[in-house]
């Protein structure tokens, strides 16, 4: 049973529940107390000891149901060893004897697998599959691409080679038997395929997701396919959660060692100024204030979409975000993003300012005219755009003034550095007034850029 528990812990890790050795020990101790008799209580026990968040509880519950819906191999192993004994020491000789006695019956010279299939002993077959899965270390399966190889391994371990030989041999001698065997083999393949799929579901879910996310993270945001947009949104939400966890630590930090003389004296007035209670100076850290200017024209639009989604899901970390969108002219979009779902918000923004040819000069002039006061010395200004201004006046002087007013001015450009400055790109001219300029085309770069911006306030 201990072996089974370990396999379950492994499956739980596959389902994305972090199970540390200490937790598995706790779970074992708890299981020793409640026993295996009542499955519901067992389930509750695992949920209490292993899962530590609501999400984990849900996935662990699913994992539990999946895991215990399949027959328990441990028990069967015991049976298996018995049947093994039977088939080796008992069944085979008896079959041989039987064959001898019958004087060359049809099933005379077939291998153990063929015999098993012919006898249609379901229990024995599933036992054999479970055993072969163990031999092929099926619990190590991680990726869906490994399905084929594990199926082959399991079938090999079950002795499919011998079965094929048998079929070849019997086609000439006894076609009817060969046909039956062939059919049984097809059935067996199906069963093994299902077993492997289930194992993949149990042990490989997280890895598969990780692989997919890894690919997605490095894909250029501007060129992802429509069907991936939803996945990308989920990924962006994960990134936001990670950033929140990392940066939403309390903002007050005790600075032991610096006595706050005024507060100490005041607090100890009752003891005639004898300092019984000491007060220490605290250092306050600012939360980031962000003003984001996003180009929503053409190919930059999608990157802006994801960027705005990320910035606006950082409520706990970021104090104050004001977002502006522009192509030909500039409008504030903070309210739209706060009140609507991401899809609707983006649609509305696009209908208001999108699809024009971009005019950076005019948009900066709009910003300076209406919202320059939004920038304080604590503000980080982020401009997201390709700086392609269709040969119109870039108005870099406004960008300089924005840079002077703010704490930092960060420019994120979805284009590669190689093409900055070519064609109508004004990037080199703008870059001189920016604190940081970085390329930002993939989710990974986006995460790093935002993470750096938030980190400067820590």
């Amino acid at each position, binding site marked *: 049973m201990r072996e089974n528990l370990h396999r379950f812990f492994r499956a739980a890790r596959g389902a994305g529940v972090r199970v540390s050795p*200490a937790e598995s020990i*706790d779970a074992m101790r708890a299981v020793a107390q409640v026993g295996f008799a009542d499955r519901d209580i067992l389930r*509750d026990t695992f949920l209490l000891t292993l899962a530590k968040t609501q999400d984990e509880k849900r996935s662990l519950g699913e994992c539990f149901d999946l895991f215990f819906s399949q027959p328990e191999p441990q028990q069967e192993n015991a049976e298996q060893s018995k049947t093994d004994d039977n088939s080796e020491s008992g069944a085979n000789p008896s079959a041989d004897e039987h064959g001898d006695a019958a004087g060359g019956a049809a099933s005379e010279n077939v291998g153990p697998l063929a015999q098993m299939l012919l006898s249609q002993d379901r229990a024995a077959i599933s036992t054999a599959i479970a055993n072969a899965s163990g031999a092929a270390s099926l619990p190590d399966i991680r990726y869906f691409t490994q399905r084929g190889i594990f199926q082959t391994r399991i079938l090999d371990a079950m002795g499919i080679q011998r079965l094929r030989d048998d079929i070849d041999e019997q086609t000439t001698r006894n076609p009817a038997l060969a046909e039956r065997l062939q059919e049984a083999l097809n059935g067996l393949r199906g069963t093994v395929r299902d077993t492997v799929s289930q194992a993949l579901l149990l042990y490989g879910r997280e890895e598969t997701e990780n692989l997919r996310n890894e690919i997605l993270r490095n894909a250029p945001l501007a060129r992802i396919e429509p069907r991936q947009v939803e996945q990308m949104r989920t990924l962006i939400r994960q990134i936001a959660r990670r950033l929140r966890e990392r940066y939403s630590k309390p903002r007050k930090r005790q600075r032991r060692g610096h006595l706050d003389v005024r507060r100490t004296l005041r607090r100890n007035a009752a003891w005639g100024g004898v300092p019984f209670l000491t007060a220490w100076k605290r250092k306050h850290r600012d939360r980031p204030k962000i003003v984001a200017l996003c180009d929503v024209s053409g190919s930059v639009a999608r990157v802006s979409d994801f960027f705005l989604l990320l910035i606006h899901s950082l409520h706990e970390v970021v104090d104050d975000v004001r977002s502006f969108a522009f192509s030909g002219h500039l409008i504030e979009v903070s309210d739209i993003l706060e009140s609507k779902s991401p899809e609707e918000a983006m649609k509305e923004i696009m209908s208001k300012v999108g699809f024009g040819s971009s005019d950076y000069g005019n948009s900066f002039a709009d910003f300076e005219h209406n919202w320059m006061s939004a920038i304080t010395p604590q503000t980080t200004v982020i401009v997201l755009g390709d700086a392609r201004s269709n040969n119109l006046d870039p108005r870099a002087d406004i960008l300089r003034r924005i840079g002077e007013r703010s704490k930092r001015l960060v420019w994120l450009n979805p284009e590669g550095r190689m093409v900055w400055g070519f064609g109508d790109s004004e990037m080199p001219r703008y870059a001189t007034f920016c604190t940081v300029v970085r390329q930002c085309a993939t989710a990974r770069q986006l995460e790093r850029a935002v993470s750096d911006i938030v980190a400067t306030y820590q």
Partner: protein
Amino acid sequence: MADTRPTASIEAVESGLAAQGYIASRQIATAVYLSQQIEKPILVEGPAGVGKTELAKAIAAWRGLKMIRLQCYEGLDEAKALYEWKYAKQLLYTQILKDKLGEVLGGAQTLAAALDQLHTFGDVFFSKEFVEPRPLLQALEQPAGCVLLIDEIDKSDAEFESLLLEILSDFQVTIPELGTVSAVAPPTVILTSNSERDLGDALKRRCLHLHIGFPEQKLEERIVESRVPGISQTLRKQMVGFIHEIRSLDLKKLPSVSEAIDWARVLVLLQASELDTEIVKDTLNVLLKYEADIEAATPQISSFIAKASRQGVFS
């Protein structure tokens, strides 16, 4: 026989808590049973007002133990949670010592002799007598054990969590001047959290994690029945059904069990025999705590009442 024992004990926990007026789901009972058996604290999470704090009180009352409560807030530190020195008494002690210095040193002639005398003299300046025990230390010193409730741990600072780790895993605390104080009898520790911030993994690892959500309809009816005995059966069914309908709305603060109990009390006080639109409208402020929520729920009242009454007929 060994298989039936834990099930029976879990049921015993359930009925024991029920005797104190706390109707526990089987998962809660299992958690309480396990925490007793493998001596682990329980971390209870869930929305406000589902009876997290009540659970600790019920356990204490059921086992006849003292309950020690530590309410967490931002800025809580070890001086308020663990122990503090009695500064004033220590100061007095040094004054007395100064007066008696002549006797203590016993007329030693040289400085070296005086120092020798001082070393042989027992130092009580940092001793148990001058320690003022705060809730955590008190909990360890209870000879019969106790229920230690660390309430709303998510409100405290992250540093405070680290302070708790020692007491949670080994039931002991370390006072630098005195050494390690171990529990006389391991207390039953309950931590509650409203998930205002994510707790550290180190803390979570040391606890059984119990999530109490809104109860199912049947369970909630039993809870109301045990807390507000005067309420008639039809009204109880109706009001619980109504609350369940309200919870399906997208509100700022969903009504939880404590609101349900309050509302039941109000309805009994107003001598309502069944729900109607008027009485619900008048008492909705007991259930919902935000003006916007009340506005959102008001148009739905009559349809919810109809639904709730229909459910009552079938069940």
